[in-house]
């Protein structure tokens, strides 16, 4: 069946305006109100951030998890364009769309989180560039990659010849885009390697404030692998969405292979992580107290999907694949939450739990992403559709 299928991308069927879209729109507008409150009344009013926890939910969820889930396009690009694994190419488009939205909203969330957002243009002024700052590198690199993601979506948009009544004709700009597509794709592989690893390096300077179980010189490696795993997880879930919307079969074999690759990456991650602990003699610490428990749960979440995928029957079963995808995402998300929040302790009498408004903004941003995602898959050929070719018509 695998060989006897034709893949294409098609706009999602049915009307855009349905219950799901309306619900997302409602959530998005509630979030917009919460955002206004933050803008007018400031961070102290709208968040529970404090002098002991200067970074909170918006950074951990929107930036660390949001961009991680958006790394599907990056992870697949490595397989498809660097390693020439063509079988995965039909998964690219939805992953790029998720990436473009995830990264754009991460950027938006950072602007909300900035205390002095009016000065954000300083990041573009060479006189202010600070090359010793990990955050400077992360900021510029994430902005550049967000742009690359939207450029990578242009071919999909151009397939639809009519956009809002305007006829799109491939002009000289578009021809150049196709000619230079390999440059865009190469940047699309390089930039995430740079900033996803640097999201880990960001914490090195915090030194003793990050619990020893997490504070490691190997932060960059862990963050890079966790980003790819979250990306692959998101791809599997999106595939589910595509096949249920189009009523087409779920691509179990291809996704089984993708889950297999994710499992190998997880094993590599676990090996390095545990070896790192052994080397630093932290095993006694690992099983102690609240941080020890978080550590055990986090790593159990990495082991569980490997166990699922290790068995061939489970690997090629849609339900198990879905569970494994969720676990890959949960493990990496918890790792990032632990490093930035749960295991971050400035040794001051300040505790942090997000405020209602902080949570509302996060949910609102998810609503906005869903609205834009549904609109994008409605108007443009993004979601993959596989049409099985009958044995008789093969040949």
């Amino acid at each position: 069946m695998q060989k006897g299928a034709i893949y294409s991308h098609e706009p999602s069927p049915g009307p855009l305006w349905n219950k799901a879209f309306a619900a997302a729109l409602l959530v998005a507008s509630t979030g917009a109100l919460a955002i206004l409150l933050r803008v007018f009344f400031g961070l102290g009013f709208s968040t529970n951030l404090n002098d002991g926890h200067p970074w909170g939910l918006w950074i951990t969820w929107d930036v660390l998890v949001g961009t991680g889930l958006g790394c599907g396009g990056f992870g697949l690009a490595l397989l498809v364009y660097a390693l020439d694994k063509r079988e995965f190419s039909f998964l690219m488009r939805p992953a790029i769309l998720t990436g473009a939205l995830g990264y754009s909203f991460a950027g938006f969330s950072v602007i909300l989180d900035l205390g002095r957002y009016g000065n954000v243009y300083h990041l573009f002024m060479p006189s202010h560039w600070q090359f010793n700052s990990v955050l400077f590198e992360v900021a510029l690199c994430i902005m550049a990659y967000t742009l690359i993601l939207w450029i990578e979506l242009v071919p999909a948009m151009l397939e639809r010849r009519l956009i809002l009544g305007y006829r799109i004709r491939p002009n000289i700009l578009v021809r150049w885009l196709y000619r230079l597509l390999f440059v865009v794709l190469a940047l699309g592989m390089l930039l995430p390697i740079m900033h996803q690893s640097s999201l880990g390096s960001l914490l090195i300077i915090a030194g003793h404030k990050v619990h020893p179980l997490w504070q490691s010189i190997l932060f960059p490696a862990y963050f890079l692998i966790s980003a790819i795993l979250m990306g692959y997880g998101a791809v599997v879930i999106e595939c589910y969405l595509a096949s249920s919307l189009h009523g087409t079969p779920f691509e179990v074999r291809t996704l089984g292979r993708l889950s297999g690759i994710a499992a190998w990456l997880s094993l590599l991650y676990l090996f390095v992580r545990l070896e790192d602990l052994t080397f630093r003699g932290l095993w006694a610490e690992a099983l102690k107290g609240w941080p020890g428990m978080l550590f055990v749960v986090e790593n159990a979440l990495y082991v569980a999907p490997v166990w699922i995928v290790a068995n061939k029957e489970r690997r090629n079963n849609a339900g198990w694949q879905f569970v494994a995808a969720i676990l890959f995402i949960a493990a990496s998300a918890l790792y990032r939450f632990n490093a930035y929040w749960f295991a971050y302790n400035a040794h001051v009498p300040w505790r942090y739990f997000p405020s209602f408004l902080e949570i509302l903004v996060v949910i609102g941003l998810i609503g906005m992403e869903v609205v834009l995602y549904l609109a994008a898959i409605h108007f443009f050929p993004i979601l993959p559709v596989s049409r099985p070719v009958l044995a008789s018509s093969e040949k």
Partner: protein
Amino acid sequence: MRMNRRDFLQNLAIGGGALSAPSFANARQDKALSSEALGLLYDATKCVGCQACVVACKEVNAMPPEFSDPDHLWDAPLGLSASTRNVIALYKEGGRQSFVRQSCMHCVDPACVSACPVKALTKEPKTGVVRYDAETCIGCRYCMVACPFNVPKFEWGSAYGKIVKCQLCDHLLAKGEQPGCSSACPTGAIQFGGVQKLLQEAHARLKASPDAYYSKVYGEKEGGGTQVILLSALPFEKLGLPDLPDVSSATLSETIMHTTYKGFGMPIFLFALFAFMARRNLHKDKGKEE
């Protein structure tokens, strides 16, 4: 086994060295103290906890009062905050007690300066004062994450807040005066001067009365050294000062950054590799279609 932070960081460095030995070839050197560096010597054994330094600091820096009593009668800050750049805390243990002063330590190799993405935090090359410029700051608060002493504080109450921290009264230094805290101190517990001289003075006091002091000058080496140094009768960890390694966390962070991105070699190499492979594989596609 309980490890202290120094052991941990040493192990970290050893582990890192073994795992990525070549990347440490270009390890960034720790920054050295400027010969003209200015700072403060705080001697906890001389401090009577009168908070005159807190009042003076607020006065010369035009800082608002901070109430901790229900009737809002006394300016009584409980710790550093966006309204308080300098505070005296009390540590009590059994029959012993000690005051301790909290403020910006004006590190020799400040993590906040290394962390700031837009140069809002800078270290004055001569005096070594760590300055903050609100006009430059984007409010990312990475300095707060980076500072080992949790000194930079954010104005959470404002809709467009800024970072607040001690600037060693550089506006007074420019006029040839000394900082508000040291000039107000009635017992000489806070002494202003050149850091080299203050270090000599601190060691002289340790030598003269070894029984009166815990035998360490805090800040001589901690975190790569600080320009605000402390003497105390009690161990400094008890007074809430972190037990830091002798190098700044900025050293490790910058070493990793600059070895990875040295001459942009690695990114350029990866880009070339990816571009080559993507181009080849895209061409294959074309061949198939035609």
